[in-house]
């Protein structure tokens, strides 16, 4: 794969080969981290938000600039803005304050970060990432440490510090892997969220995050797709489904009185290979005769406000409940997505609830009460499908996925911000016959990020993405060699968007699938034609046209 924003895989391989078994890149003998320069170059920074995007969002300091500029044109009085912003957030978030105070720098987190493992940059060790802020915190917010300035590793807030924050808090995907290992439970994702809020206050930002946020606010989804196009796109998927299966499914849009509102990331509607996952959902809902509707207004499960600020996150998320209320549905069903599910699980009801206009979710097919979602009233599709399969409500032929040798990638947010591990595995094992786990240090709560989460999936960020995704790719390579795995199954739209590039870079020949795409392949639909191809129109093994002796 060639891309001007990333070095060739072989060169990167050589880099790893040369430094092994060390993880750090470069010689740091006698150096202190605060003396290391911050160098922006092709591939390690995302383009800043365009002025018109900032104006649309009413965000600070719209201007044309680049991270490689010497002068970032920070607004007058930016130091005060940052300090006041920090003070305010320290007051509102106990997490931020406790995490600033109680790190002992034991170093357990150091080699847990995928960005550190891939770049060997010391400031990507989670402890140092946090120290970038802590050093300023100690200087400005603690008297004792200020007196012992040098001793306590505190430093003044300067424009160079802002550049450093911009670089390293955009080399954190908020995946929370470090927080699993931290004896104090310090969560770098929380610190990154705070710092990105602060940076947005002075116009230091990322277009790949803010443009989708602005689009989502206006049109309901990241890509800025207007309602008629959104509908057309799903209807073209309906045509594709008919071509492959001979079955015409019938989704409805903005339909009042439907029992369930279905919300999924818009990547499933527009992106390859997300669209095949969407086809899987549509087939499933048709198969069980679900009374559901899709909204063009709340047409996005993802929420890039989460990577911007708490207020932006709430503003975008508010549409889900607002629309559910307007349509009069009983509860909400959510598609496969990572950060959407951290948000729905840990934030939505707090921010935009209580959801007392909805009913406690009950599966209309099995009668199962989803008591774990009885307050937020939104159910994950993997929970929903696992329950259907457990009750024998789906006609499945797992042989239809025999052309795929699968492994499962736990999405960071679903794993460490929700705790859902079993349901997707249960579903996967019921819809396919060949499944192999990646090594235990790389799955479940220890899963590695795709390297492009939290709004870092930009083309111009390719170098860091391919490095950050290296630990994940490495684990895939392991099962590929050992078990000839060729299919990486995920339940996250960002994964579906980013892992194909990562696989092309590190493991050519491995294809990325959504869980419900495989469900869609395996479903035996009423009135279907003879199936020979999967949803991608690839031939299925053992179902060739001429073999009638099945």
């Amino acid at each position, binding site marked *: 794969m060639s891309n001007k924003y990333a070095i060739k895989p072989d060169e990167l391989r050589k880099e790893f080969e040369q430094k092994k078994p060390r993880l750090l890149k470069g010689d740091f003998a006698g150096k202190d981290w605060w003396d290391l320069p911050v160098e922006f170059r092709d591939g390690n920074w995302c383009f800043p938000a365009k002025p018109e995007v900032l104006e649309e969002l009413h965000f600070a300091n719209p201007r044309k600039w680049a991270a490689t500029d010497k002068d970032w044109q920070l607004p007058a009085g930016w130091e005060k803005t940052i300090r006041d912003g920090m003070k305010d957030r320290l007051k509102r978030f106990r997490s931020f304050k406790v995490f600033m105070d109680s790190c002992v720098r034991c170093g357990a987190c150091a080699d847990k970060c995928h960005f550190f493992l891939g770049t060997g940059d010391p400031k990507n060790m989670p402890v140092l990432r946090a120290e970038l802020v802590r050093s300023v915190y100690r200087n400005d917010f603690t008297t004792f440490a200020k007196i012992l300035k040098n001793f306590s590793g505190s430093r003044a807030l300067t424009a160079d510090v802002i550049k450093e924050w911009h670089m390293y808090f955009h080399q954190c995907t908020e995946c929370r892997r470090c927080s699993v290992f931290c004896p104090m439970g310090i969560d770098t994702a929380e610190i990154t969220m705070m710092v990105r809020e602060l940076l947005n206050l002075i116009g230091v930002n990322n277009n790949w995050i803010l443009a989708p946020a602005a689009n989502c606010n206006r049109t309901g989804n990241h890509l800025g797709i207007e309602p008629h196009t959104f509908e057309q796109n799903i209807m073209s998927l309906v045509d594709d489904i008919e071509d492959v299966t001979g079955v015409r499914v019938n989704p409805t849009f903005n339909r009042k009185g439907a029992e369930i509102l279905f919300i999924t990331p818009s990547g499933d509607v527009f992106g390859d290979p997300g669209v095949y996952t969407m086809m899987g959902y549509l087939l499933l809902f048709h198969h069980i005769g679900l009374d559901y509707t899709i909204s063009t207004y709340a047409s996005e499960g993802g929420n890039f406000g989460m990577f911007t600020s708490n207020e932006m996150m709430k503003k975008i998320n508010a549409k889900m409940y607002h629309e559910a209320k307007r349509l009069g549905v009983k509860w909400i069903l959510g598609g496969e997505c990572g950060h959407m599910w951290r948000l729905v699980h840990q934030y939505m009801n707090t921010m935009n609830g209580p959801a007392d206009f909805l009913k406690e979710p009950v599966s209309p097919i099995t009668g199962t009460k989803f008591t774990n979602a009885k307050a937020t009233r939104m159910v994950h599709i993997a929970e929903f499908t696992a329950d259907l399969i457990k009750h024998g409500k789906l006609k499945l032929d797992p042989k239809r996925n025999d052309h795929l040798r699968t492994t499962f990638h736990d999405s960071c947010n679903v794993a460490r911000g929700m705790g859902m591990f079993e349901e997707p595995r249960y579903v996967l094992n019921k819809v396919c016959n060949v499944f192999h786990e990646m090594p235990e240090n790389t799955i479940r709560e220890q899963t590695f990020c795709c390297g492009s989460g939290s709004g870092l999936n930009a083309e111009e960020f390719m170098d860091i993405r391919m490095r950050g995704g290296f630990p994940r790719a*490495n684990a895939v390579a392991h099962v590929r060699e050992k078990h000839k795995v060729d299919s990486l199954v995920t339940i996250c739209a960002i994964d579906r968007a980013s892992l194909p590039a990562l696989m092309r870079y590190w493991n050519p020949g491995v294809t990325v699938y959504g869980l419900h795409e495989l469900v869609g392949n395996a479903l035996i639909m009423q009135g279907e034609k003879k199936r020979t191809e999967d949803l991608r129109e690839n031939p299925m093994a053992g179902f060739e046209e001429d073999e009638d002796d099945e």
Partner: protein
Amino acid sequence: MKKVLKPLIAVIVLALIPWVGITYGKLDYVFAIVIPYAAAAILILGLLFRLVDWLRRPVPFRIPTTCGQEKSLDWVKPNPLESPSNPFMAAVRVLSEVLLFRSLFRNTKAELSGGPRLVYGSHKWLWLGGLAFHWSMLIIVIRHARFFLETLPMPIELLETADRFLDVTVPALYLTDGLALAAITFLVLRRLSDEKMRLLSLSTDYFPLFLFGAIATIGISMRYVTKVNVMPVKALALTLAHFGFDAPEPIGALFYVHLFLVCVLLAYVPFSKLVHMGGIFLSPTRNLPNNSRAKRHVNPWNPDIKFRTYAEYEDEFREKMKKAGIPVEKQ
């Protein structure tokens, strides 16, 4: 190396202060009575302040780091410790962190091998060293109760006997003395021997280790080598325990070095990373149950946000929606 030498020199200078003060200044009263009370006051008031300061800040969101299966469908086996669904199990989770260093037990070591290939090995040394250090320190502190109490309560007596079961020296060797020294040595060496640790360590990481090391070394040498006369020490301890102000009988300068360094440590706790002893209880990623979809968590400062309503959306796209056959509210 400046990062290491500075705290080392600091500890040596701090140790010299009482030695000079006692030997040349005859400041026994200051070091025996005034400074210990002051240090204890700073510790207690400081920690209280820190605790209140943390507690008065709200926890807007329920953000546990889930390290195991959540409670969901009846037939899916949940992991109540790593993904607690109620406050009781969340408390158990916190205690497993405080008492057993649960998360540190997971520690692995990543290395690049040929290929390039990442390999992960189990790496429990930090867990073991940390546990040995914290537990032996705790037991040593509890053992010191014999100085402050007229009669020793049974549990402490038992603890002491257990700690002494290796009866190989006169006076009997305390196991925890050796363990503490070994653990401190390990904790210093691991910061010095690994290039990542050298980079991320600050002077304030070495300082408490050196301080603990000096306190333990002097304490041990008083017991096994210089054999300090225990009677006046006990008399002073009892005076302090009864909030008395009587001048102490003469005790060797070495004892005052020990006592002064302990005072420095106590006073240092509230202002340093040593407050992690309190912070660990308040970490929202550990002390909250993972039940935010089942039970609404309330944010006391939940802001009012104006979002784009459906009506505004329909106003912009009504004609296009009608043309596409999507139902609208207003014709």
